């Protein structure tokens, strides 16, 4: 009984801010606020950057998860902790750290500019970098757990049938961890989409270049609270739609993407 009550309080705790938001939104001007050029600009940038960040997280995170799950090497725990550090790091600190590494005076700032002519801070690429930095650990963690839980004996069977390690990975391992790949990618995307602290610290707040939706919301809160509310609800709607939509398709037990 008490447990149900506590659970009810917890649900209310999560739901109330959302309803508060809905209640405060100036619905009559919602559409015009949402379709303002600045809003659309921020939306376009957010979608663009978060998708790039997700792609990078998948491309680099999959081999990383594989190595962490399958290879025992000295210092693996340290490497693992380093890769997952940004999960628990305050995003602002992450931004400062990125600055120290890739900033103009940073560890790699000069070489990157001298050799490739690339300046990451205050650029759209910087936003992608910051979002990847905070989003990828979610992907790595999810996929690594799936790889660890996998029965490797099926891969052994594939090898005896003439499959190279790469072929076995593609046709046996990948399908088996597909739900985890999608779950991890969705989590990483959601984190990247909502990224604020590291972005504003490392990439700044330039309209059309680094001002993503969360930054636009933050800015509008001062100048145009109505717009901030509308954009917030919009972000919630997108995130909610993605999580619910993909959940049934890829993460749920009944979806056709689930091989078990």
């Amino acid at each position, binding site marked *: 009984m008490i447990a149900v009550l506590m659970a009810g309080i917890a649900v209310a705790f999560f739901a109330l801010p959302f309803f508060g938001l809905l209640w405060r939104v100036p619905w009559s001007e919602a559409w015009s606020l949402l379709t303002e050029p600045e809003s659309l600009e921020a939306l376009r940038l957010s979608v663009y950057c978060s998708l790039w960040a997700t792609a990078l997280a998948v491309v680099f995170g999959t081999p990383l998860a594989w190595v962490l799950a399958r290879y025992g090497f000295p210092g693996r725990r340290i490497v693992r902790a380093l890769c997952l550090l940004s999960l628990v790091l305050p995003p602002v600190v992450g931004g400062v750290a990125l600055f120290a590494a890739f900033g103009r005076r940073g560890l790699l700032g000069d070489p990157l500019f001298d050799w490739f002519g690339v300046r990451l801070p205050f650029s759209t690429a910087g936003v992608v970098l910051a979002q990847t930095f905070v989003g990828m650990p979610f992907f790595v963690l999810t996929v690594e757990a799936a790889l660890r839980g996998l029965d490797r004996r099926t891969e*052994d069977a*594939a*090898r*005896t*049938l*003439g*499959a190279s390690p790469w072929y076995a990975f593609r*046709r046996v391992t990948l*399908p*088996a961890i597909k739900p985890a790949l999608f779950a991890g990618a969705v989590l990483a995307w959601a984190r990247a989409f909502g990224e604020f602290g590291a972005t504003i610290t490392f990439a700044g707040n330039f309209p059309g270049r680094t001002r993503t939706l969360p930054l636009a919301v933050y800015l509008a809160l001062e100048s145009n609270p109505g717009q901030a509310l509308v954009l917030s609800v919009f972000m919630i709607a997108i995130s909610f739609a993605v999580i619910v939509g993909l959940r049934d398709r890829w993460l749920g037990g009944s979806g056709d993407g689930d091989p078990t």
Partner: protein
Amino acid sequence: MSLHARVVAELPDFRLDVDVDIEDGETVAVLGPNGAGKSTLVKAIAGLRPLDEGVIRVDGIVFDDPDTGVFVAPERRNIGVVFQDHRLFPQLDAVDNVAFGLRARGMSRTEARRLALAWLDRVHLGDHADQRPDTLSGGQAQRVALARALAGEPRLLLLDEPLAALDAATRAEVRRDLRTHLGGTKASALLITHDPVDAYALADRVVVIEHGLVTQSGGLSEVTTHPKSRYVADLVGTNLVPGTIDAGVLRTGNDVGIAVPADSPNGPAFASIRPGSVTLHRTEPEGSARNVWSVEVVELDVRADRIRVRLDGPIGLVAELTPSGHEALALRPGDRVWASVKASEVGISEDFSR
């Protein structure tokens, strides 16, 4: 194809050190209790576990030799494996499971599926081609696994307890499929099992492994007559008589009737008679035993704790005596005696393979 293997592997509890040789077209059964190192042997030959010492040579080609650093990856050995837990790919249907190895070796999808379908037909599962493994019964899954291993036309087939996870009726069906293929294709095979019936039905020779070492090897009758350890005596050293049961009597090929438990189902079966349940008498016994045969003592194998007597008669039998029983009977080769076995002491393994 011939195999010469000396497999040495340091296992957590003991050291596996066995020699196994298979001649061209031969099926060798490796028998042993659980935890004897049988599965490690399979892994080593398949290339899933590098040797610690020893050598694996197939047709004179070295596949694994720690001394010279030669190690051929499993996918380059072309050694087929059927595992106890079929290990089919859950996301692929039956025909794609069978086609997997052909595709891995570069065959086109259409061609691979066409061949795979033919293999499924051969194990009588042609109409289950589009089913996923989780919708197949245990016996069907194991037959798909057999077709999958055979489809690549391996030079050597390793069968790691392929029947152990199946119920008795299914086991006999899969055994029949195995026998068809082991006999028909002249393939060389290594069969890991702990069931002497499997060895009897499928193998030309047995190798017994206990605690990492070969305790005995040779032909089945040889091992049955001269078991060198308690394990071999108990498990392998059993009289197996093939025949057909009709109304509580198993009739052998040369028309000898053996009374079996009355509730035994009709049809082809093996009667298994433990040597310990064969009683020998100097005079014709009167009593409840329904199986009584006049036999001749061929050979005595006297050990400290037990005496094995090979008998020749309507059916060949091995009897086991206690030292005191041996003393009382004072048997010598050439003696004629009476052997009796109670019907209730005859075990039955249904044999759908014939």
